[in-house]
């Protein structure tokens, strides 16, 4: 009853081209953004911000990037962890080389390095497709894991082999490093993720996004109607890697505080891919839903026995965590292969027709 498009007439072209054409959607987005910017920092405690919301936002960003590549452009990639590592290490080097520059700008610039690397590893995509390409992108994953672990220049020759995030201010407020408050770090992540998500929404409905989808659906047909596959695929790789790179930089700078290259291992790539698939391929909101699912489920599984008061040791919980996650993924794929975003769109259709069945 509340969710109706009837009566919302578009009288100008500008109105017609709005990002969120349905009024209820628009208000929904405003409410979500307003809530996460104003209410959440006021009410959430440190545990919620640090253990759930910050990683959720960062994973969402990375999943968003991979979704642009895999969901929209149809190029399967398993190198996300590697691209994130490039972003993180580029940011670390930039911050230590240019200590005076604003750290937010450096985080955004470090994504460019990752984008460049993505361009290089995207080159094989012209010749190879599907799983062959997925395996080829694993090359990026393993190469960068090795590179950042071995070459000491990347972690400034320190003995621990880890990158330690220095304290950096954004207009006198510490936003990275040990002294930064959780709220400040949350706000930084939230701002960057919001802006990049809006950019992504705009990208996929524009010329580039349509070209990606044409390539995904059938690349030969797309070529015949005048889309050049090579630049289109490369742009997809570059933009996707940019998102991954920024997410990687944020992951180290605002979430972990210090990190070794192992955090960006192959499991990271798979986790992000899970988020994309569970959230829904080819859907921006799916990236967020999938990230929420994958971040929340392990926390839920770990805490559920505690809440229910069942005594259980942590090693067993760890094992069950894997088992339940694996089983959930399979179940999920069986019941809704198109992901959480599809469930939302079904609900939305129901809402529009309510109280009639169709």
């Amino acid at each position: 009853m509340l969710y109706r498009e009837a009566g919302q007439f578009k009288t100008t072209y500008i109105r017609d081209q709005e990002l969120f054409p349905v009024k209820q959607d628009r208000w929904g987005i405003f409410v979500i953004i307003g809530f996460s910017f104003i209410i959440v920092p006021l009410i959430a405690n440190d545990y919620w911000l640090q253990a759930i919301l910050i990683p959720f936002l960062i994973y969402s960003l990375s999943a968003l990037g991979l979704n642009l590549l895999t969901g929209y452009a149809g190029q399967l990639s398993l190198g996300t962890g590697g691209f994130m590592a490039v972003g993180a290490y580029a940011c670390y080097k930039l911050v230590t080389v240019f200590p005076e520059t604003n750290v937010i700008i450096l985080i955004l610039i470090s994504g460019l390095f990752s984008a460049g690397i993505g361009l290089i590893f995207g080159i094989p995509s012209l010749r190879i497709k599907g799983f062959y390409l997925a395996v080829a992108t694993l090359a990026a994953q393993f190469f960068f894991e090795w590179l950042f672990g071995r070459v000491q220049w990347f972690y400034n020759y320190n003995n621990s082999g880890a990158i330690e995030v220095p304290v950096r201010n954004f207009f006198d407020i510490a936003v990275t490093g040990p002294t930064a408050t959780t709220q400040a770090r949350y706000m930084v992540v939230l701002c960057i993720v919001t802006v990049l998500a809006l950019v992504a929404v705009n990208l996929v409905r524009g010329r580039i996004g349509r070209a990606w989808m044409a390539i995904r659906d059938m690349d030969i047909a797309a070529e015949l109607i005048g889309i050049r596959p090579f630049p289109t695929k490369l742009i997809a790789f570059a933009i996707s890697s940019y998102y991954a790179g920024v997410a990687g930089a944020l992951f180290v700078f605002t979430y972990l505080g210090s990190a070794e290259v192992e955090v960006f291992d192959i499991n990271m790539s798979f986790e992000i891919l899970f988020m994309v698939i569970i959230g829904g391929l080819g859907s921006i909101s799916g990236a967020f839903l999938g990230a929420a699912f994958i971040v929340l489920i392990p926390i839920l599984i770990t805490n559920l026995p505690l809440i229910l008061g069942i005594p259980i040791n942590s090693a067993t919980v760890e094992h069950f965590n894997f088992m339940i996650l694996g089983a959930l993924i399979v179940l999920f794929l069986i019941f809704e292969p198109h992901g959480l975003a599809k469930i939302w769109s079904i609900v939305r259709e129901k809402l529009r027709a309510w109280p009639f069945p169709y």
Partner: protein
Amino acid sequence: MEILTTIFIQPFFDMAADPILFLQVIWEGFVTGILYSLIALGFVLIFKASGVFNFAQGIMVVFAALTLVGLHENGIPAYIALPITILVMYALAFSVERLVLRPLVNQPDIILFMATIGVTFFLIGFGEFIFGGEPKMMITEELLLPYGSITFFDDMLILQEIDIAASGIAALALIFLALFLGKTKIGIALRAVADDNQAALSVGVSLNTIWVLVWFISGIIALITGIMWGAKSDVSFALSIIAFKALPVLILGGFTSVQGAIVGGLIIGIGEKIGEFYWGDLVGGSIESWLAYMIALVFLLFRPQGLFGEKIIERV
């Protein structure tokens, strides 16, 4: 100029200066290559028969080896533990077909791929829950596998007996597989499914049976691999990373070719060892983890379907 010499000339001089050492390196690569081939073979069989990119192959190796060792640790003698393990692999194949593949039939490839990752997670949790996460020793002696080593050229060339046995067993397994696929009724049905599953279905081949069978065969190959690899190091979940080593073998040999898996495995195994031994130190060592991928990647640029893969024909 000096850099060029150390990269392009010096390693070859090193090889020529000590041919026995070179032989040793090749042998090591050969043995590793055989194990890669076996893993890749498991991938290829499943991919051909059901079109599923089975990410769980690596964890099946660990799971099989772990079941064998775990049963033996609980006091079951090796000659009984081995058949039980084979039964467990059958049960695994059956349940994967029934619970995962059958409900997901006709879904896009990527969904099936993700489902096998789900299976991987499940098996990791399940295996650790039952047998514990700590590394175990492979029961080499009880399985009557030889240990010790043979030396040639005044102790210059050392061949581990277990490696020789591994090559022998792998060769035997391949011959059996070739005979099974070529001569038996089930084998021919399996090849028919691999060729065109709808046509096979229409002449009365049961797809479900074939899928169980092919996962079972892959499970047995995983068991063989697990025993061999476990005898060289110990049995733990760290072993599953060798599955990642087998992936470049797949793209090199082609996803659909049995010969490709074998030849690709040997190329990657030997190439990787030579690269690591003669060039690895120039860039800081441990290049094994990605060298295989680079070899495969360069290869792919020239032959997108791999060495022996079927030519990819696309219709619009």
